[in-house]
């Protein structure tokens, strides 16, 4: 029997049981759509994390208090209050740290800002003039505070563009932070929002002012900027050396601080989102498998129902291969159709969800092709057993079945 005729016969038989074919197809449709949509969402969140981290600059190194090397006595990273302004000064030494371009200590907390009758809650960081360089940000209007402001504990504040807009504040205004007046001296240029989290919703005050007036405590983090992307390695070694020295630690494995580069952060974040994506996609893939079992079930029903037809076709000269191919093609058509409709549904989800639920979906060709390929493969694999049953039926027995 020609392939074309086999396909036509298959179509006729599938159309003969419309409801059944549609329901079987649905199983595959949802599986494929789920794979495409979940991988798309995973991809989008991975993209946004990557973009957000790289936008901070690849020259950035972050020193956090506490050790990530668990020697039995250390708590979690950041729990130790081990960083201080003398560390910052040590790191600023050009002599021992020639590859470090800028240093900025950070102490951070959430606070409500009040400007007249409006108020806005945001993240307030205490830092030094190096903040701007290490975060690769620029000033939009006004100025950033300088070393003198830090030394004299001036009550000045620099706002992110979103924060300024929400407060209705501009350069020269007085803003209350925890009831303490700060003068707005600058507004940052927008860095754009990157997926979750808005980099324009923040405020920065001189480190000393924040320490004395707002949060107290010490240095939570120290941001370092290497002179270039190629000197990150040596900047890392220099920072490590200096801190071990100022902290009087001779065994590097006992270090009470951790230095992370952006590349490390990036690969960690990517690993996390990738794991999540794989997890979600596996769940979706299981539903595809279930759909495949549905196809097998319906093909077995079809073989049983058409036993006498199979017998007749055998008597008329259909070879076992003819019948095998007939049923495999029918199963393949069911899943191919389900796969194509699943792609359409997946793309529709990718179009609707970002607009309806503010969840980014980034659909790439590969998962679409893989999902359709898997769907068709599932159909062929799960079609094989029923098709073999059809091919192996003894013609006499089959003819007798009525």
């Amino acid at each position: 029997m020609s392939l074309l005729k086999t396909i036509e016969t298959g179509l006729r038989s599938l159309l003969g049981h419309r409801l059944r074919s549609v329901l079987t197809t649905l199983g595959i449709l949802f599986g494929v759509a789920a794979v495409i949509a979940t991988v798309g969402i995973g991809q989008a969140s991975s993209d946004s994390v990557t973009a957000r981290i790289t936008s901070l600059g690849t020259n950035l190194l972050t020193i956090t208090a506490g050790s990530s090397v668990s020697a039995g006595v250390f708590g979690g990273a950041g729990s130790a209050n081990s960083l201080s302004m003398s560390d910052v000064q040590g790191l600023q030494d050009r002599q021992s740290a020639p590859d470090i371009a800028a240093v900025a200590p950070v102490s951070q907390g959430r606070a409500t800002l009040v400007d007249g009758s409006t108020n806005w809650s945001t993240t307030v960081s205490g830092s030094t003039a190096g903040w701007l360089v290490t975060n690769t940000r620029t000033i939009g209007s006004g100025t950033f505070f300088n070393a003198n402001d830090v030394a004299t504990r001036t009550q000045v504040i620099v706002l992110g563009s979103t924060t300024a807009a929400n407060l209705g504040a501009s350069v020269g205004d007085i803003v209350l932070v925890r009831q303490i007046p700060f003068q707005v001296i600058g507004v940052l240029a927008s860095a754009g929002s990157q997926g979750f989290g808005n980099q324009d919703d923040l405020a920065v005050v001189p480190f000393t002012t924040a320490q004395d007036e707002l949060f107290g405590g010490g240095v939570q983090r120290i941001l370092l900027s290497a002179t270039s992307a190629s000197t990150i390695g040596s900047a890392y070694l220099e920072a490590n050396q200096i801190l071990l020295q100022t902290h009087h630690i001779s065994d590097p494995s006992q270090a009470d601080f951790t230095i992370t580069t952006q590349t490390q952060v990036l690969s960690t974040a990517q690993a996390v989102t990738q794991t999540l994506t794989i997890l979600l996609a596996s769940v979706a893939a299981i539903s595809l498998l279930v759909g495949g079992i549905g196809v097998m079930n319906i093909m077995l029903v079809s073989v049983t129902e058409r036993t006498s037809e199979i017998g007749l076709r055998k008597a008329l000269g259909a070879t076992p291969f003819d019948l095998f191919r007939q049923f495999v093609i029918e199963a393949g058509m069911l899943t191919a159709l389900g796969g194509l409709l699943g792609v359409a549904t997946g793309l529709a989800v990718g179009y609707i969800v970002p607009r309806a639920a503010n969840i980014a979906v980034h659909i790439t060709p590969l998962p679409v092709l893989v999902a359709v390929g898997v769907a068709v493969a599932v159909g062929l694999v799960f079609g094989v057993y029923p098709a073999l049953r059809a091919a192996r039926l003894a013609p006499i027995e089959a003819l007798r079945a009525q």
Partner: protein
Amino acid sequence: MPSSDELIHLESINKVYGTGEAAVAALRDFSLTVASGEFLAVMGPSGSGKSTLMNILGCLDTPTAGQYWFAGQDVSRLNETELAGVRNRRIGFVFQQFQLLPKLSAWRNVELPLLYRNVRDRRSLALQALEQVGLANRVDHRPSQLSGGQQQRVAIARALVTNPDLILADEPTGNLDTASSRDVLAVLQELNQQGRTIVIITHDPEVAPVAQRTVHMRDGRLVEQVAA
């Protein structure tokens, strides 16, 4: 070895179903020859091995022992695919239950065997066959729109369409009333007069007079041969 004018030559055919204690011999040392152009009726009570004979003759099953030459070819040891080829090219089947596919029109049913041999012009061949059985005006009817006699004639057209060496009919009149039976037998007789070999397996005594030769079976053996 069979002589050249023999279409069918069965020699000491044995067919045993089951094994050991449960083994049942359906055919025992069964030998039969059918000449080309002959019209043979095989009669016998149920359980006499008629159906088994039909399956073997029709290459739907292979004998446990013995030799079967069909048109000079030993078909008793062919595999399933080879047997399918023999059935398709050389044998036309007519069944008691008609075995028409209900969703296909008359000519689509007649076309079926041609689909398994990649013939062009299937429609004109099918129409020709339907005309031969007197159903030229029913080609687009579905089986449900036809009477029993008409359905059986569609089945005969289907058996005929591949121009086979043998038409093998299994109780072709078993589901028909007297008038339709006569119709169907008349068609078969006409085909035989055109030179086609026909074997009818039946227990309908009406068939015997139409056939040139009638053989009787009992317990898997040939018991009597009657020339018409």
